[in-house]
């Protein structure tokens, strides 16, 4: 009998399909809360209506796509999910081939809109990987190897841009479905040790600015006016926020432009400066709640595909949140990652919102 990998019994489909709007509203509410808070913070950090307006447009687009994805039936999209990764590869190659201004090739400009293919890949890759791994009842070793090779190719393409932070995320997004789907533990340990073995080579292939970031992380105050500037200033901003913060639009560090990239990667510093420890705590709780709700799908779903996709996407989201915040507070090297739903940046916002939409859909239909 021919395999229909992602299909389940007819009665379940009928039961669930009736309730198109039966998704987890607490997740939607949290995302909207974060997004709107982000818009307010971008305004405080940049003082530019234009930037806020543009981000608001992306937020609107993201909201539409999120709700659309949440209302869709993932089972019907099986061929799309299996092949989605090719779209990602197409753009990743395109971005490297196209002549770009500056020293990095991260952006594709469609004239009216620009986006980062690497952001797209870290979201398409785990979906395709999960779809591929679960297309047959039994996963063969060769399936895992094919997914692994695909992941490594995607990783290298992003690494070449060069974008260290996102390439690590892409690697994680491809490897997670492999590991979660039952890849034997001893192989995981072997690969981990093998990975450590390649670190020296990886270090050598890093760009100078990337190496500098790691040096800076080790001793940020050593060169307070040079490359340690970002971290030092961001710590001052956070610390001076104290318990209650200095008030919205009142943070001297951010208003006087002491925090570089204050509306993108370092926006967390602005938040703490203006809303204090209390504001930070609130944000931490919101994020923790969001990840908790998203993981609920991975826990309760009866579809392996749904479990793999939702778990991987949740982990990626958690990784973004954690790495960004730990970078801004100075306990992790500067890797250039946005804070999900809050940092200014259209591609990341839209992709994150679609991610949420897909998990919502998985939760509803499985």
């Amino acid at each position, binding site marked *: *009998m021919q395999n229909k990998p992602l299909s*389940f*019994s007819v009665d379940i489909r009928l039961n669930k399909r009736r309730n198109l709007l039966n998704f987890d509203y607490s997740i939607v509410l949290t995302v909207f809360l974060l997004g709107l808070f982000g818009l307010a913070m971008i305004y405080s950090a940049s*003082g530019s209506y234009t930037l806020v307006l543009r981000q608001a447009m992306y937020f609107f687009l993201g909201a539409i796509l999120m709700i659309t994805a949440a209302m869709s039936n993932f089972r019907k999209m099986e061929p799309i999910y299996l092949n989605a990764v090719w779209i990602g590869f197409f753009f990743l190659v395109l971005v490297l081939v196209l002549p770009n201004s500056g020293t990095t090739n991260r952006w594709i400009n469609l004239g009216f809109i620009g986006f980062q293919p690497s952001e797209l890949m870290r979201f398409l890759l785990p979906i395709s990987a999960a779809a591929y791994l679960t297309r047959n*009842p*039994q996963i063969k070793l060769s399936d895992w190897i094919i997914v692994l090779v695909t992941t490594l190719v995607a990783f290298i393409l992003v690494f070449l841009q060069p974008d260290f932070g996102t390439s690590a995320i892409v690697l994680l997004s491809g490897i*997670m479905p492999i*590991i*979660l*789907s*039952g890849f034997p533990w001893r192989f995981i340990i072997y690969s981990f040790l093998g990975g450590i073995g390649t670190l020296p080579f990886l270090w050598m292939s890093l760009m100078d600015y990337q190496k500098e970031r790691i040096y800076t992380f080790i001793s940020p105050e050593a060169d307070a*006016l040079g490359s340690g500037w970002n971290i030092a*200033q961001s*710590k*001052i*901003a*956070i*610390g*001076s*926020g*104290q*318990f209650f913060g200095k008030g919205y639009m009142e943070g*001297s*560090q951010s*208003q*006087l*432009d*002491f925090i570089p990239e204050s509306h993108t990667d370092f926006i967390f510093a602005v938040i*703490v400066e203006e809303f*204090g*420890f209390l504001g*930070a*705590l609130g944000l*931490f709780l919101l*994020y*923790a709640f969001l*990840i908790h709700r998203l*993981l609920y799908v*991975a*826990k309760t779903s*009866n579809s*392996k595909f749904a*479990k*793999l996709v939702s*778990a*991987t996407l*949740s*982990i990626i989201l*958690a*990784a973004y*949140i*954690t*790495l960004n*915040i*730990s970078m801004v*507070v*100075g*306990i*992790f090297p500067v890797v250039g990652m946005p804070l999900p739903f809050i940092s200014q940046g259209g591609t990341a916002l839209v992709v994150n919102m679609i991610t949420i939409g897909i998990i919502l859909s998985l939760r509803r239909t499985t």
Partner: protein
Amino acid sequence: MKNFSRERFKTGEEYSRALFFLSPFIFLFSISLFQVLNLTLLQGDKYQTIAESNRIYQKSINPVRGFIYDRKGVLLAENIVQRDLYVTPAYIEDSTKTILTLSNLLDMPYELLEKNFSRGVKKVKKYDSFPLAKALNEEQIAKIKVNLESISGIEVKATLKRYVLHEETLAHILGYVGDISSDEIKRDKLLAEIQNTQIGKTGIEKEFDHILRGKPGIQTQERDVKGKLVRILDTQGAKDGKDVYLTIDQKLQDHLFKFFENRRGALVALEPKTGLVRALISSPSFNPNILNSIVDTDEVEKLFSNKESPIFNRAISGQYPPASTLKPFVGLAAIENTVISWDKKIKDDGKFYVEGDPRPYRGWKENGHGRVDMRKAIAESSDVYFYTIAFDLTLAGIRPMLDSFGFGKKTGLTDFEANGLLPDKKWKLGYKGDFWFKGDTINLGIGQGYILATPLQLAMAYSGLANKGLIYKPQFIQPADEKSFKPKKVAEIQLSDDKTWEKMEQALVDVISAKNGTAHKIFDANSAVIAGKTGTAQIKSILPGKEYDAIRENPALRDHALFVGYGPVEDPKLVVAVIIENGESGSEVAAPIVKSAINFYTGGFDAE
């Protein structure tokens, strides 16, 4: 069932594995929270202190605005140092107290400073400074300097301000500078980057702003918590603006400006053979320095609300009926269209009748000029002669000639000049909602009715007569070498008989030289030979039963006096258009200015 095979997956392990791989992030997340706790609560005071002393600023350094010189290198506009008192709201603890102290120190009224303060606070961000009192004198500076330490948030800044040396004489040519407005930034996004510099608002300052402006530099400064400069960390110098040399002849301009005392009017003087503008006057004028550095806002308001509109540039934007100064062009149109021959005489008895209309079109001379040909009609300015040929020409016959002499379109001197108005049937229907009547054409024949021209357009049209058909693009920028300068041709008017040019010139010379010429009063055998034409522009049409004498009781309704001329005729050096608003007699008030301009320029000046 098929689905049973799925149970062979170790389902359930995905979640626990997910938690396992999530744990490092959960760990890092918790550590981050502790770090925030550590920074804000345990080390909060320390960081608060650092943040307060953390005052490294990047200030833009304004470039020095380029100077403006005349054609001979005479300085027209420079920059002078002005000391202003700046305040930064964020560093002022008690604004009332600070303002009170300052008002005592500066000996300035509290209310004025209070007004400036509340106005400024609204405009800038908390940590930005704004000027509270401008152009401090030595005594004020001395007093402030002594007390600088005890008052926080204040600072005396020396800035370069635009200063126009000849003040009112050059106001309309040079224009003035000012701060960049938000509207201007909307129109030109690049201006946002140079927000602290001043840009040209009108005149040369605006037209050549891109040359004069320069590029600002950046200075990185360290300041203490009260905003006082501790040290300079880095300086990237500004790129100063470049100087501009104008075609204007300052001595000529100065000489001619005196004629406009207590008069409203305008003058344009340019070289017909090159288009280089040598003098340009609009009166009443204003002192551009009042606007270049706005110290007293009341004075500025007075300037802008003045009913005589001194800021308005009449020379390039004022639109007047050309009146009789249009006659030579109508005459050329008639000759070219063979409506009349040069020597054909027409009887002028002071009145012109159109068939079916009992109302006569009157000439300016009650009983007429008798039998006149073109030469005499120009010299004596016969209205009936031109009524007749205009009637025969029709609108379609007159317009092309006027158009080729540049009426109704911009000359290209600046972007800000007016178009004038060369009416046609479509225009009248659109703007007046009425058809074009024969009477409109007849009035057009003597430069009245709907036609309007700027003094600049008149000067340009007469340069076409002086050059026998060639008109060059006018310009304000002095060429590096005048002798090898090749002006840009904007019109080349061909007549079927070249001799017509000389005949017309002779008629224009007769205006002054002939005994009956309308401007014979300025005839002077020792002067350069000048060709020109008087004009008297009616601003109120004379109604039946009401004579001009009744109208002229209101000075604002008196006729405008015009004279446009060039000379010396054998080698025209200068063409001059003069209009005196409500001056009544072109020959008495306008013509002497033109004559003086040509004589001064050809003899008086170059002889030196």
